[in-house]
């Protein structure tokens, strides 16, 4: 037993077997788990341009809305056409006018534009796409 305590791997002569002590086993398991987890996480990192494309789409919509002074219905229709598979909200003057899909996520990409009408009243349009 004294031998078992003092070394990680021991050869027990009379029983012809390798004995791995508890701390050595734990150590090996932890090392293996860390290596496997690191490799899996590295393999799963996928670079893509999805966020940038979402931002570009938001800008496309806001540009058009600013130029055409789009109505709420037009905004909803056009946003649905361009952001068909996304969860998004449209806010006008901080009031949510449309919401599509799950918008509870903390991760979101948002763009804002301002329209001034003939009497110089400001209209703040905010388009937010959630992950």
């Amino acid at each position, binding site marked *: 037993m004294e031998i078992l305590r003092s*070394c990680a*791997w021991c050869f027990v002569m009379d029983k012809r077997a390798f004995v791995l002590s508890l701390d050595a086993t734990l150590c090996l398991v932890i090392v293996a788990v860390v*290596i496997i987890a690191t490799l899996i996480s590295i393999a799963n*990192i996928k*670079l893509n341009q999805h966020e*940038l494309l979402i931002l570009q*789409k938001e800008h496309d919509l806001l540009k058009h809305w600013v*130029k055409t002074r789009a109505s709420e219905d037009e905004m909803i229709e*056009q946003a649905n056409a361009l952001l068909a598979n996304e969860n998004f909200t449209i806010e006008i003057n901080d009031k949510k006018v449309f919401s599509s899909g799950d918008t509870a996520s903390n991760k979101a990409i948002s763009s804002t534009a301002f329209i001034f009408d003939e009497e110089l009243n400001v209209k703040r349009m905010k388009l937010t796409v959630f992950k």
Partner: protein
Amino acid sequence: MVHIIGKEKGFVFCMDVSVAFIIVLILAFISLAAIFYLVEIRAENFKCFEQEKNAMLFVDSLIKRSSDQNGLAKVDFQRRSVLENEIESATLSANIEKLEERLVKNNVIEIIIKGSSEEPIFKNDKIAKKDCKHIISIERGISIDGDFKVMRVVFCDG
């Protein structure tokens, strides 16, 4: 663990050290194989990322550059400015025809204006979709004669 025998010159590795050494060797070999595999995956991933980026930049320049500068955007001659994202339907076909060589060079398979009819306004006859290893599809919002439309540009990669 490691002993020097007095009369015989040499090291004697006891069993625990040998077993540990073998385990370390096996782990190192597995790690090396995994690293090679990962490098290959990352390289492929990075290549796709670069191609996606190029495709996005190409579509962006297509709708932001004026028709006389390898783009499709309308020009306001009075204000002397390019009207980004605005396209004139009357000149669209002519502009696409003018850009055909560039579109083919950049592996564009087709350009579709989504709406009632989804007939492609450009189709590359030299590349078949099924022959592409990876297809990149970029959708952007444009304004054609004041109406909002979704333009989809499909690229062939590989």
